[in-house]
């Protein structure tokens, strides 16, 4: 009937009108730039010389032979591995501790969460002072009779320092997510297990962990993706050094684009980064059925 189909048609229009802002926004600010990065990656684009030449897959071939890129990937791997392991285990530990009904837990929760709302660059600059050879940390170590290293000037300690600074900055957010999940674990399940004679560890492993596994999945995805995006901390603390030990992938991309004016090559690296993040996220998503409780 004509009136019914007109009504359907109107519903259809209203529906599209309602989603239009977000669809257009996503197209303009996500899909289009992504497509353009891919397009740029097929060009040699030197901003200064004002050259924009189609070179096909040359930038991708160059990546394969670029030792600096290999180093950057390795640095990213170390950073991400260190950050994810430290961050998630510390966040879970804090969440379990602060899930107890004891006086003062709210204060501690606030204390551990507060770095999350501090400006990233301000946080990092304060740490850069603390980590100096004659900074606060070594001053403290000296007071207790220890000689601290020059944290940001040795390859291993610089990477450790960058990881720890980032863990302290972001562990609060993961802690809150875990806390919320822990509070959703039904009390009666714990009590039942207690009556069956299960110890604390057994209850944690067999009841708590499976029930908070969806949150563990979420937290690991955002932490891994976040770890691959680290930039400001590196820029402020080490500038990619000493040597190239903390030149992670994003920092390498930044150098290629904004320091060396190689926007085409940097775009190719950006595509690589996109693929890495996509693949890691898909892998975790695919593997969820094996270990995430709600997916069983």
């Amino acid at each position, binding site marked *: 009937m004509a009136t019914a189909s007109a009504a359907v048609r109107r519903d259809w229009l209203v529906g599209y009108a309602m989603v239009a802002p977000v669809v257009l926004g996503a197209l*303009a*600010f*996500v899909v*289009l*730039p*992504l497509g*353009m*990065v891919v397009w*740029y990656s097929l060009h040699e*684009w*030197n*901003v*200064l*010389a*004002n*050259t*924009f*030449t189609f070179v096909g897959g040359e930038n991708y071939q160059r990546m394969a032979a670029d030792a600096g890129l290999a180093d950057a990937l390795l640095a990213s791997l170390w950073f991400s591995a260190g950050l994810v392991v430290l961050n998630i285990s510390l966040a879970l530990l804090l969440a379990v501790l602060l899930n107890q009904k004891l006086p003062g837990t709210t204060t501690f929760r606030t204390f551990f969460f507060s770095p999350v709302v501090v400006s990233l660059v301000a946080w990092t600059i304060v740490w850069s002072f603390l*980590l*100096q*050879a*004659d*900074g606060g940390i070594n001053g403290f170590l000296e007071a207790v009779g220890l000689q601290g290293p*020059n*944290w*940001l*000037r*040795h390859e291993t300690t610089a990477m450790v320092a960058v990881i720890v600074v980032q863990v302290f900055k972001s562990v609060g957010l993961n802690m809150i997510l875990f806390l919320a999940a822990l509070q959703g674990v039904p009390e009666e399940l714990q009590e039942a297990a207690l009556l069956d004679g299960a110890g604390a560890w057994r209850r944690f492993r067999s009841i708590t962990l499976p029930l908070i596994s969806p949150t563990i999945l979420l937290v690991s995805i955002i932490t891994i993706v976040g770890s*691959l*995006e680290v930039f400001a901390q590196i820029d402020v603390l080490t*500038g*990619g*050094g*000493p*040597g*190239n030990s903390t*030149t992670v992938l*994003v920092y390498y*991309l930044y*150098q290629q*684009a*904004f*320091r*060396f*004016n190689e*926007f085409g090559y*940097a*775009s190719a690296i*950006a595509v690589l*980064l*996109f693929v890495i*993040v996509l693949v890691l996220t898909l892998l975790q998503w695919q593997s969820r059925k094996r270990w995430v409780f709600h997916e069983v």
Partner: protein
Amino acid sequence: MSAQHPHPESRPRRRAAGAAALAAVALALTACSGASDAPVGEPGTPSEPVELRMTVWTADEAQLALFDEIADEYVAANPDLVSGVTFETIPFEDYTTKLTTQLAGGNAPDLAWVFESNAPEFVSSGALVDLRPKLAETEGYALDDIVPSSLGLWEDGDGLFAYPFSNSPFAMFVNTDQITKAGQPDPAELVASGDWTFDAARDIAKATAESSGKQGLVVRDFDYQTWENLATVWAGWQATPWSEDGTQCTFTEPAMVDAMTWFHDAVFEDGALPAPGTTADFFAGDAAMTITQISRASSLDGSFDWDVVPMPTGPAGAQNVIGQAGIGVFAAGEHPDVAADFLAHFTAPENAEKLAAYFPPPRQSLLNAETLAAANPNLDAEQLQAVVVDGVEGAVTKPAHKNFAKLSETVRAELDALWVEDADVEAVLADTCSVITPLLED
């Protein structure tokens, strides 16, 4: 220029949409703008007066006020041409990066200050327009008054792609309070007796640091990152990072090995210079001496007694080093003709004399103690003669190369291995050469 543009029909400021996709894929995304490398000519009167924009790295209010004053005169004299000139400060540390980002965004300024280190890159890229015809034909400009050696970095063939408005010698600032307290000889007297050497400076720095508990000698803005600032020290050994034509690495030459060994030992054995990861600001009274440009004298607030003396001599004798900065006009700017006309006004003799208050000009007629004294109340005529006038004479600039951005970063990463106590200087320098040789030949 063999530039190919995605939109050859569109002249400047063709801007494409740009935004971050994933936060990580944060490239500013814009199409590139067209440019011409034809020399600029007489500006035709635009249909309406234009706004010019010049990027600078100074945030000093007195300097910016002087620029505004000079610009206001120009605007008043050329109301049909220009409605205003904006001086946009970009912080020193990220200056070139932010400038090229503006270029990438199709938002080129009309004029820009350019660091000497980047000069060959900017000059050879075709990003700047040739100013020589404009400056040569401008009445009263006296192009031949400009010291020819000061133009070397900014020329390519017959073209002149920037005007070296600042030629500021490096000198040694001395905190005489701290040195006297430590019972050390006065550097000015050592200069007079001909004993002002790098070794003497190191010994004074070491003894003063031990006595004051502060730092000795600071090579300002080096911070174990901006290695090119060490050129002020290497000069005493006549050491350079690469050959004059920029094709050969010379980090392994005996002069450089000696200079770097001296520096390394002064830091790690003598403690005469602050070790990596230690910050010390001479102007805040944290150090006994500092090597920096004379233009920094304005940072002295009278909280301690100070002096400024020429750079010490090294084993190879005395070598003056200046820090240069140029002003260029971007081909990709909206009004290169008008911008070049403004530059000719901004740097004409009468304005160069005003600018001399902060930036020693490259003009022979102005490089004398009287002119500079009128503009630099912090320094007496003797200091100006010794440090500025004599300092510009036969001076070398800091290292520059057309591939400088990559070289700077690569050398920084390699030299990091040198800034540890037990470093093998020769091995590190050999590694540096093997890594940068392909970049020099690029």
